[in-house]
């Protein structure tokens, strides 16, 4: 079963972090990624640029509108994702809980629709 771990953080928290704290956080993420790669749960994962770089596109009656920013303003912003393979939701939650973002922000666990259905 495949799940997407959506990583949410308050970007303002990063601005308050020192150089060393930032370094330590990246170390944590790297260690975590390596960890779930080794255990065979990792499928893919990426960090996203800050939400200030986001652009939203809509097509209404054939007319395209492009707007600056995300679909909705939220207190925490999507900052990245992991695509994982897990036996069931409990295993997925246990993997999500170890993600550094679970401590700093939150991790949303979404099951993916299985193929052919």
């Amino acid at each position, binding site marked *: *079963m495949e799940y997407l771990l959506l990583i949410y953080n308050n970007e303002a928290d990063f601005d308050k972090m020192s150089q060393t704290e930032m370094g330590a956080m990246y170390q944590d993420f790297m260690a975590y990624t390596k960890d779930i790669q080794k255990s065979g749960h990792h499928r893919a994962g990426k960090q996203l640029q800050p939400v200030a770089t986001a652009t939203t596109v809509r097509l209404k009656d054939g007319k395209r509108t492009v707007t600056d920013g995300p679909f909705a303003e939220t207190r925490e912003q999507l900052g990245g994702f992991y695509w994982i393979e897990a*036996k*069931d*939701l*409990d*295993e997925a*939650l246990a993997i999500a809980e170890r993600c550094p973002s679970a401590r700093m922000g939150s991790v949303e*666990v979404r*099951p993916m*629709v*299985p*193929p*052919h*259905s």
Partner: protein
Amino acid sequence: MNLDSVFRLESLYREERRRVLATTVRLTGDFDLSEEAVQDAFVAALEQWPRDGTPASPYAWLVSTARHRVVDQLRRRGRFEAHIEMERLAELEGAEIDLSEAAMVDDQLRLIFTCCHPALAVDAQVALTLQTVCGLTAEQIARCFLTPVATMAQRLVRVKRKIRDARLPFAMPPRDRLAERLDGVMLVVYLVFTEGYAATTGKVWIMRPLSDEAIRLGRLLCELIPRNPELRALLALMLLHDSRRQARTGPDEEIVTLEDQDRALWDRREIAEGVPLLETALRDGAKSEYALQASIAALHVRAGRAEDTDWGQIARLYDALLRKRPSPVVELNRAAAVAMAEGPSRGLALIAELEAKGDLAGYHLLPAAKADLLRRKGQWREAADAYRQALQLVANDPERRYLARRLEEVEQRGLRRS
């Protein structure tokens, strides 16, 4: 058909439905299909047993019939949905059914833990537990919660869809999560009980079936997980509260407060079961909020007359509850206990502090408690004001009538004096 065998089947349905369902879900891994299949299996039994005789193990017969139905359904779907693996179906059909007591216990626990999984919304956990574990229909559950049937049915469909699509495991929680997950199960049981004990809205003050179901669930859990002090404390709490049920309402459904209750109406059997249950739970180290609340209930039950109540000790137990989890409602209860122990003025001072904090703004029991203490002090006009305030906020009919009666009483006393 033989009427006798129909009755026997009916009692078998009540006793075995949950166990048959639990095992069928484990074998098939499909919540929704298993439920339907178990109903079908009982219908099949109703047709076949009176004719062919009751099988040696009704449980095994029902499980294997239900399992066949699920496999049939999956096979039918498999023609349309490629992801259903045919090999798994064959394996599923052939798997041996473990008839041991231990396996049955585990299946039932798995069922309960799945229904009370923290990934599900709490109201959905409550509804699902009532449906799958207690066997209530969506209509019955809707009636208990004064929710439209369609809303409740929708909630149940949604929660089962999540179980299937997010693949919630039908499993016991891992050992290091057991305590935390059991807390979640206890909360669901307690919510079922409190909803049954005092309906928050609407006309009916005590919803009997829900408190019965909650006590039944509590007993089942104590059976399935023996020697757990917190579970025993929770069951004791429910029994001790429930023991006062008869006395809590008068002939016209009006509320009778603890002080005015006819203690002869308290259920001796429930008290005789609840008090020793709590004592062993406390001896074995129970220290949850349920244990503390049960201790408070036990102190009430122990008092032969209202004036014998050990309010000082009750106030101390509320202190302990507050240390566990600060809550303005518990603070209000504590204020009432302190008032009974040390006099209404002391209680009123505590209520004034609570009022100033504003956490309970809009909660009718705050002005109601204040009114009660002012009444005890003979400050009729102030009491009447507070009762009026409470009346503006109350949502439950019997409580409204109680407050209106009290208001009338203090108004008359006030008139007589002036």
